[in-house]
């Protein structure tokens, strides 16, 4: 990350509500092109809500979210997606009435420059073996997570929002997902990663934003993580 890198996503004083319940109280962060940035925080801190508010799925929101200079507050999710942002949701969102291959091919292409199917199968060899599988939800948890990431890579979206991709997965699968994220960074994707597993976050990210009670309370570059271990433990309560 350098200051010269292009500012891609800028979130300023983002507030959000589920009905009457005020869950985001002022989220501020920036992501530059080619960066991997994490949102770290405890359960219920507002990390997932932040991603949903960026996508417009959490519709009741104020403040400012710009992507490559375009203001997205007030836009519908489908229009936000077409700007080049793709979400991999926490619950993975694999469709049970679709085959593995249908799941993979479902998200429409929104721009040139997505990964080819060959490259995707190269990154996720398991999916190639299982592509004829009748039901997407018959896959193992790890394979479902791979599928949820894989299907947003061929659409041409430049920014990926990954919501806890390691949740509930075996260590060996977590390592595989870590290698995948590193490979995606190499491919030029910009990634916002929501995590609770800070060891995993430290292994893949450039910078970390700490989210607590609906606010971004701190930013720690990955290179300064060592010096800030104690602070981080206080924030995350681990």
């Amino acid at each position, binding site marked *: 990350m350098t200051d010269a890198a292009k500012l891609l996503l800028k979130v300023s004083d983002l507030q959000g509500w589920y009905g009457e319940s005020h869950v985001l109280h002022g989220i501020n962060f920036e992501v530059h092109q080619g960066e991997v940035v994490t949102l770290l925080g405890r359960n219920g801190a507002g990390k997932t809500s932040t991603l949903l508010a960026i996508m417009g799925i959490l519709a009741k929101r104020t403040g400012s979210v710009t992507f490559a200079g375009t203001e997205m507050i007030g836009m519908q999710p489908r229009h936000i997606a077409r700007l080049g942002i793709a*979400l991999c949701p926490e619950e993975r*969102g694999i469709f049970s*009435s679709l085959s593995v291959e249908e799941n993979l091919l479902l998200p429409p292409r929104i721009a040139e420059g997505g990964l080819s199917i060959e490259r995707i199968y190269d990154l996720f060899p398991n999916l190639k073996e299982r592509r004829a599988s009748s039901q997407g939800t018959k896959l193992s948890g790890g394979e479902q997570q791979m599928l949820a990431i894989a299907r947003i890579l061929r659409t041409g979206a430049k920014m990926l929002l990954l919501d806890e991709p390691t949740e509930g997965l075996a260590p060996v699968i977590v390592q595989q997902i870590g290698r995948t994220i590193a490979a995606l960074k190499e491919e030029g994707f910009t990634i916002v990663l929501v995590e609770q597993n800070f060891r995993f976050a430290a292994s893949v990210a450039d910078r970390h934003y700490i989210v607590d009670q609906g606010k971004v309370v701190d930013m720690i570059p990955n290179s300064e993580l060592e010096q800030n271990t104690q602070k981080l433990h206080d924030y995350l309560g681990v």
Partner: protein
Amino acid sequence: MFELLGVPPQVLLGQLLLGLINGSFYAVLSLGLAVIFGLLNIINFAHGALYMAGAFAAWMLLHYLGIGYWPALILAPLIVGAFGIVLERTMLSRLYHLDHLYGLLLTFGLALIIQGLFRNYYGISGLPYQIPDLLSGGHNLGFMFLPNYRAWVVAASVLVCFGTWFMIEKTRLGAYLRAATENPILVGAFGVNVPLMIMLTYGFGVALAGFAGVLAAPIYSVNPTMGEQLIIVVFAVVVIGGMGSIMGAIVTGYMLGLIEGLTRVFYPEGSAVVIFVIMAIVLMIKPEGLFGRPA
């Protein structure tokens, strides 16, 4: 000729054919209901009225504009589908955030209004619609007489049902539809215009009803009450097959038509209620329907 349980085969096969004809209408109508329920979560009570409107559209095209059966088979469903899209845009779309019950009430009200309007203008004695020349007459198959038009109805309904099933289960468009049925928010977040899909799906579902109406016009007379008689049975078919199951709606439609036909042969008194008896039994044993997934 052999006899089965004292029933001459002509009678048996005749009733089975009649059952298959009824089953064809059950299948096409319950298919439309299942498609609509799947994506919109609305129990479309206006389905019978729109089936009737399809038959009337064919009659009006002929009577006022001189447009015959074959063009009407395309035009009437398009007219009914377009009307359905207007209903969806102006009324149904305002109810999606509410309980299913409101969609049911709205479409029930619409059904009453549509039927009332037609009854007011055309009475309830029914209007005749000629079988097209190409399909008049029939064939003697040796063991029974098969009217050409009835054979066509069965063939056309099988074709439309299979085509719809294929489109939903085997194509990319169908994959969007199935995905949006499961999780419309996520599909929207992939950049798909889900409201447009919902609108077109409702239009397509009611166009199927309109198509069934045109098929029915030469068999039953064109009558404002033809939909309300049929729709109650069709709802029972949908419940038996399982809400939202495409294949379930089709198979159950034909199957129940045949069962109804058989009942008419062996126990005529029971033929009017057999479908409802089956519905009650299915609801007790497998409440999600024969082809439904447990909720």
